[in-house]
């Protein structure tokens, strides 16, 4: 990519993403391109598809849960084209690495609600938590346990008692206890990894 288009891109992205300096944005874009090249044979495609992104989430950010990685991908992919472009990449990472509490709150909520109705429903919670118990003697028992866990969560987070968690519910609960931010599974880089990545952004590229 030549200097000019690069500069233009950096300029346009920097206008929307405030958490990074221009030089950092440039680094991230270069990183994006190298990742795309490495992952993608079809060079004409200017973005990361789901599999490539998941591989990155796993190797760089230490995430393991497939389902959640998919959800993170969808949260990154703002325009829903099943492909993350440079802008979405930088934007996503800004929350990932430099996000304020509110930004992260929003991001997590986006990851957790899927069907787009703005609520996390009981079924969705069940889906997300279904692997959270070590296999017990029978599947039935495990299911029972998870159902109860869902009830516990709802009891804790569903302030308006409508059987689903709205953003307001979520915000209120998390603000009360920050530990609940990633309540349905890890969707942010771990603190340790986060530190390393910050260094990465600042220096190496």
């Amino acid at each position, binding site marked *: 990519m030549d200097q000019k288009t690069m500069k233009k891109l950096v300029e346009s992205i920097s206008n929307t993403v405030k958490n990074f300096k221009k030089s950092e944005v440039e680094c991230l874009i270069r990183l994006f391109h190298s990742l795309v090249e490495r992952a993608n044979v079809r060079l004409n495609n200017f973005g990361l598809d789901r599999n490539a992104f998941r591989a990155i989430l796993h190797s760089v950010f230490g995430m393991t849960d497939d389902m959640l990685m998919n959800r993170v991908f969808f949260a990154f992919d703002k325009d829903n084209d099943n492909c993350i472009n440079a802008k979405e990449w930088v934007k996503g990472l800004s929350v990932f690495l430099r996000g304020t509490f509110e930004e992260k709150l929003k991001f997590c909520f986006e990851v957790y609600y899927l069907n787009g109705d703005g609520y996390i429903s009981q079924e969705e919670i069940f889906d997300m938590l279904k692997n*959270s118990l070590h296999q017990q003697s029978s599947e039935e028992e495990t299911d029972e346990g998870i159902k*109860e866990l869902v009830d516990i969560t709802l009891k804790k987070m569903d302030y308006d008692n409508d059987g689903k968690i709205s953003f307001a519910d979520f915000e209120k609960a998390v603000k009360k*206890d920050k530990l609940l931010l990633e309540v349905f599974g890890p969707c942010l880089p771990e603190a340790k990894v986060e530190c390393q990545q910050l260094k990465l952004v600042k220096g190496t590229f």
Partner: protein
Amino acid sequence: MGVALTRSAQWTAAGYGTRTLEITPLNEVILKEIMMFVESFIYKHPQEAKYVFVEPLEWKTNLDPSAFESGYIVSETTVKSEEVDKDGQPLLFLSVPHIKIRSLGQLSRLLLIAKDRKLKEAQACIEANRDPVTKILGLDYNTVKEDTSTVNILDKITKDEDPESEIKMKVGMLLKQLDLHLLNHSLKHISLQICLNPTTVKNDIELLKHFSGKGEQTVLESIDYTSDYEFSNGCRAPPWRQIHGEICYVLVKPHDVETLCVTCSAEGVFLNGGKTEDEGEINYERKSEIYKDLVTFLKEKSAKFSENMSKQDIRFTEEWKKENEEPKEIPKKEEADALPKAFLASSKNILEKNQINFGKTQMTKRLEPSLNWKATVDFKEHKSLLRDTQEEKHGGRLERAGPPVSPGRAQLVRKSAEKIEEILSDSSSENEEDEEPPDHRQEANADLPSEYWQIQKLVKYLKGGNQTATVIALCSMKDFNLAQETCQLAIRDVGGLEVLINLLDTDEVKCKIGSLKILKEISHNPQIRRNIVDLGGLPIMVNILDSPHKSLKCLAAETIANVAKFRRARRAVRHHGGITKLVALLDCAQSSAEPAQSSLYDARDVEVARCGALALWSCSKSYANKEAIRKAGGIPLLAHLLKTSHENMLIPVVGTLQECASEENYRAAIKAERIIENLVKNLNSENEQLQEHCAMAIYQCAEDKETRDLVRLHGGLKPLASLLNNTDNKERLAAVTGAIWKCSISKENVTKFREYKAIETLVGLLTDQPEEVLVNVVGALGECCQEYENRVLVRKCGGIQPLVNLLVGINQTLLVNVTKAVGACAVEPESMMIIDRLDGVRLLWSLLKNPHPDVKASAAWALCPCIQNAKDAGEMVRCFVGGLELIVNLLKSDNKEVLASVCAAITNIAKDQENLAVITDHGVVPLLSKLANTNNDKLRRHLAEAISRCCMWGRNRVAFGEYKAVAPLVRYLKSNDANVHRATAQALYQLSEDADNCITMHENGAVKLLLGMVGSPDQDLQEAAAGCISNIRRLALATEKARYT
């Protein structure tokens, strides 16, 4: 013989039937004695030798029939004696190898025949006949012997007159004598045998070491070997001394005696010649008697040791009683060890009384001396037990779902072991939460609250869930009211504590945070604290203090702050390096440049430091921890934190400082770090707790004069005085009055306090206050009243009445302070009138009966100005029935302060002639004379004054001479204290009125010393010295004159 055989002979423990005598020196001696007795019997007691046994003595002999000669009918396999009984039966019958003998005469002959094999024969005889006396005299004599004295036997025998029984009786008597003789003999033998061995000595020393150290509670100041090298046999003495049986040499420093250099040898323990200073060689020569062990030795040498030892004993016994499971075997062994010793001590008087049934009665007594050793032994055992259980725990932690630990036995055992060890390492700060709360678990299924089941469910998720489920469970567990005991105990009882602690060991930051948040809350419960420590939670938390996550550090420190409220926990924190880490947390606040964007879960540096201070505050209640904090460089950091203005931070910081200020080192450091300034500044804070701790810290530090001046220079007296006006918060009031008390030891401060009208306020606080406040208020008034203006002020404010009223209290510290204050007031004649009217003198006088020596001394001091200033003091003193006798008898005390004060009081009492006559009758002269040999200058001064006063009556002068008080008095003149000189010179002047005393003085070189004192600037001293010299001189002239005329 019977008793000696059954009791002291050492039988092999092979069970019945084939039991044989062990070949020990003791047994050999017994056998030889018996043989000598039997051999000579035929010559010494021919009559009794013919007495025929009730039953024959039978055994297997090795003697050949051919050995028998005249007087015997010998065949190939049998031998019969020619001597026969009434029925014609032979008295000796041998049918190889069995032999039967029925008289002592025959026994006697047999031994003669056996010649060199007689020892074997005697042994065989006794082995085969375990109770020879019964066989000889019949069963009835033997039973008689068992339960009563010989008198009964005599009774019994004298009743039937027949000559045979007379002989029988004589035989009985003779045997009895032999028995006694044997016992005596074996005793001598046993006494030679009590030898110490390296292990027992080592154990003794190790034990004593545990209880040595600084402070009043310990038994010794120190005990150390002279040599670090231990030979493989356990001895430390050089080989050429080991030949003499010496095991090691120990330097012992008791509280009240100089360092003793002690030799522990196999024979016992004794004082040696000590270490020579130049070469460090030991003078091996024995300088004292031999004691049977180190403890006995020390008890003899140091009164303090035996006193504290007995206290320890009591403590041990209590410990002992608490535990119902006794490790039976080991004490028994100890008993067995103690047996020969006790045997030695007890059996002597038994023998005197001719009572031979020791054993039963003595057994109980014998147990006593070994009690403390029992404690040692099980202490050791507990330690190893402790280690075991901890190892178990470590193992158990790996599998996440452990069963709830039953805190029964193991815990109990551990507790007591810990206690013993920590008794000394802990400073005895007040409010120690040390009594173990009863561990009540909820009864199964009996009305369990609904929380219990809900918590159980959550714990299930903690155990079986992944990180996500765990976090959810932790968060909802936090929603319970964790301050409520039911919830706290529910978490524990369903096994939640183990899981929570296990979570701390994982890598999941969120789980750790969640878990610590819960632990922090529930650790307010004393039982939970102990459980956390038992489960090994502290080391993990201490490790978390190293974590890069600040909020984790904070939470861990806060939890430690809660847990470390009892000794064992504090010690665990220290042992795992927690103190250093906590001190390091304090450092955070100094790097003030914080990164703007910190991680999501992070706290601020100040917060970290605050939590660190909070934990240190808890930990600083142990002496060793105070030391560790100081060594880790905590004081400068605390001083730095003290400059901040956050109350939340200041309270734990000042709290820690206040706790630590009980140590000398800290007070010096506090001065050096200019902490006082900030303490004073914070007195002006709005926060009552902060004020309280600041005042408390000043109270602790103001023992030191410089600090008192610093408080004044930084303007601390004014806030202190104004805080007096707020009396609602009693804790704070106690701290503030305490600070005022200590500060008012300096005169300049008192002046300031008067300026601030603090004295009036203090007088107002004399009523309706709790004791802690009263002690300090009265203490402060006592200091203030050393000055005239203040005495007047106190009187005018009506302070005397409440002070006198306080004389009837029971709190010792309070009484000491009250007597001092009353004494200070009594210096003023006008105040004295009031005291007299309120019957204060009688109250003071009755305090002379208080058991506490400090109170006695203080009361006696206070009496001095009272007697001086009371109108018609002589009459007043006489009114107290038995009062004079009481005070004279106090001269028998062994407390120097009491003695000095009583001497001073006697000086004042003796000013009245009639009273002097009465105390003379009560024997004041010999008692005073007895005290004369002292090195204590304070006592010397007052003693000399008392003697000089008492000389004024009758022939007391002469009596002092007779009781040898004069020579020691002369030596007082060599003291460095001018007051002693004056008092002594006056006393000598009085004594020199008697010619004999003059001679004694002259002989002891008084003249030269007195001549020097004539030149003193002190007029009284001059006068007295000159007067004394003139008396001596006049006597000399008179003798010369008498000689030449």
